[in-house]
């Protein structure tokens, strides 16, 4: 198994929004979904997930309601709001721009200067 990467600062919110955008999930489900999408190569601090969820809900990017989990337990499900969808879109775009930019810088060779 490849070594697990620590989550980059500030990317947790974006990953949560992405995970929830694929369908409503409870907190633990979000954790599993992120790890699944990352091919288990990423380590999410479990506890820090919940302050992030609370923050996103506080901002109006997420909505929550209590529902039944897959094994018939009560669980709190999060859903993306319209505002959350917009936030995800802008954060994805700026992430791509930033990634391209950084990649470009890192690819630089002495000849190009």
């Amino acid at each position, binding site marked *: 198994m490849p070594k697990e990467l620590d989550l980059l600062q500030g990317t947790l919110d974006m990953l949560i929004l992405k995970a929830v955008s694929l369908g409503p999930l409870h907190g633990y489900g979000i954790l599993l979904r992120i790890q699944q999408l990352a091919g288990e190569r990423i380590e999410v601090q*479990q*506890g*820090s997930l919940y*302050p992030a969820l609370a923050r996103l809900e*506080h901002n109006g990017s997420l909505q929550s309601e209590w529902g039944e989990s897959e094994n018939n337990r009560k669980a*709190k499900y999060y859903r993306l709001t319209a505002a959350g969808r917009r936030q995800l879109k802008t954060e994805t775009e700026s992430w791509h721009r930033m990634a391209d930019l950084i990649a470009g810088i890192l690819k630089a060779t002495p000849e190009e200067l």
Partner: protein
Amino acid sequence: MSLRSRLRSWSSAMRGRSGMENDMDAELRFHLEAYAADLRTSGLTEEEAYRKARLAFGNIEAHKQDVRQSRGLRFWDDLRADLTYTLRTLRKNPGFATIAILSLALGIGANTTIFTLANTILFDKLGVPHPDGLRLLSWTADDDKGVVHSMWGSYGPAHNHGFSSTSFSYPVYLALRTQSAGVADLFAFKPLEGNRRLTATIDGAAEVVTAELVSGNYYSVLNVKPQIGRLIANADDARAGSGPVIVISDRYWSSRFGRSHDVVGKQIALNRIPVTVIGVTPSGFTGASSVQVASDVFLPFSMQPMVAPFGRASLLEDKELWWTLVMGRLKPGVTEEQARAVIDLHLHQAVRSTMKIPAGGDVPRASLERGSQGENFAGKDQGQSVRILMGLVAFVLLLGCVNIANLLLARSATRKREISVRLALGAGRFRIIRQVLTESLLLSALGGIAGMLLGYWTRNFIPHFLSKAWDTTGIQAHFNWRVLLFSSGVSLAAGVLFGLAPAFNSARNDLNTGVKDRGIRTSQGRKSRAGQLLVILQISLSMILVTAAGLFLRTIINLAKADVGFDSSNLLLFQVQPPESRYAGAKSQRLLHEIEERVRIVPGVEGVAISSESLIAHGISNELFFIPGQPFARGEEHSSNINDVNADFFATMRIPILAGRTFNQTDAPTKNLVVVMNQAGAKKFFPGQNPLRRQLEKYDDGPVRVTIIGICKDAKYDDLRQQPPPTIYGFYRQSQEPMQMTFEVRSRELPQQLTPALRNAVRSVDKDLPLVDVRTQREQIDATTAEQRLFAALATGFGILALAIASVGVYGLMAFSVASRRNEIGIRMALGAQARQVLRMILRETGVLAIAGVAVGAAASLGCAKLLRSMLFGLTPNDPLTLGLSVAILLGAALLAGFLPARRAARIDPLEAVRHD
């Protein structure tokens, strides 16, 4: 990130706090259990799975705290904890809490009371829609070359030079109104107050009422709607006599008619002219002149010639007398300067077409003043007093704040260990500062609420004090949002002010020394230095207040001792205003003479004086007099105060006749006008000569000569604080003009008991003549010094309070100092210091503090006292006696306060003190 969703989330979290906590717990539990279940499927035992799940999750409480912070709850949780903690410590220290809250309540209460008054006097606006759109017309002209010489209304020096007035002649007003209609809607008004009040006869009973003459468009331009009935309209004001109608104010409707709706259509008589009440103005409406008090009745200008002729032909036709007040609203789209220019042009034309302009005569120039406060007499008269009072109470509040700061500082010294422990356990310095600030803000909030209640209860204390005893229509100070805003702001500022220093002091705590038992000792130097500075500040603030109290007290003592030049005891005063509709011309003199004779025989009456001006009542009449042969000229050197009196005036008032004689029966019917002059007048008009039987010339319609038949001793005229001015007394029975006279009745016993008998005597002459403004001469004089007495009372109260607070401050500081220096003092005594030396040492330290405070305070007092100059009488602001006494009082109080701790220090048993530590 919408603000709305945040607020919604925060408020739902706040409201359903326990629900939110349960939700959070349930959610986290679900997470742990779900993870543990997954771990179990991979083969772990239940117990191990749980352990591992919890380990992976991290510190549950810390995460929960983060969740709360995410939802914006952290701040409130902390606040609640701080408040609970503060309340607990305050309950443990009821003495501290009481002193702190009480001194704040006094300070904020006093500030609220004064600000309520200031708010009413300085900021209140006329009770009409859009008062800010109103403009009051005024004009300015040169002092000497002006063309307006006959004026009834107020005037004063203009901003740059010359003088300005707001009175216009009625014909000029009419011209302005029609010609300037393009730029402004102008209307006219004129309050009839004081001597100009009207006599209203309602259901056979006569009383005096204040009135306001108003133009036909007055209510429509002001945009005021009637409460019941209708208001005065243009048709009522079309031509002289066309509108025998009146509108009454809400206040008069309540006080005189019990708010009965039958009042509309009621017939009453004003100065014996029958008029019909047509409506009532709304309750907040006070007319266009005053913001504070509404006139009793409003009547159209068209009724002036009948109801209020004032001995002349119709004032509506009079081109010489300037008396009408003009206000207006600018037309939409017209700028201030455009309107002024147009009105100025028309004023110029109107003056030229109505008056003779001598060569070089200066035609008035129009200007527009703010009209939202009417004539704003209250603001002009009492603005200065209110500002001084504001300054005085600001010092009181400041002193209260310093006091609390000192108490908090002393407390923070004793709480040093506790705070050190909290710092050691990981509390941030900001958290500590916040906690201490929460405490001071809670104190200031409690003090502020108490102060606001105090201010609310006492809001009418000062207006009541300043109003005349015999006049019930004083200013009503009222609470509004501006007062609440001010008091809350002051409380908040006070809390921050006295809380900040102790807060930072606490946070600066040194962990190491703080936790150790003897923490207090090691940093005592810095602590007590802050305490010393605060005590010096307290002493100097007290010095300022004590000095102010001394100045005001000496002022009222001087006023009480002031020689008025007549005997003011046992004199009862009342006014008689014979309506001209019945007593035209000289008929009023016959009426007054008849009343004089009737009053003289009332049992208990020793003498009856009559005068056209009441003495010491801030009323002045003056005229120009010339040595026969001198050319006519305007100027102060020809002016003398005048007073028309009866023959017994000098005997009754006990003003000695020094030479010649007083008036007698033989003077009455003749046309040879005779006068009595006071010494100041003799010195002014006949320096170094005998004025007896000399003549002076004055101008009525043409030159008139008066013969001086007597010289009387100087007596004060309008104001207690002025030297007796040159005064020329005329004989009222020689006047041909209708008069409003004051009767001064001297009695053997308490003069008030005479009132019913006097009322009967007057009624037996004319049953419709009311006695107006019945008061004693002493009350009359007191009314003119009410301001000084109010200042003296308040300043003395504040000064005593300040002295007490400063003494407590000195005592507290020195007691603390002695207690923490027990050891040192013990060693000194063990090494041979005598008890007396220790006593002297502590007293010397107290003295140094006191001298520093007094020195700073004396310098500050000298600076502040200059502002009081206009309020003082018989002494200068830097009066050495007052200053010396204040210094002595403060030094004495400080040494007294320091004596108790000093004695305690002197009684320390050296053995015990040294062993103690």
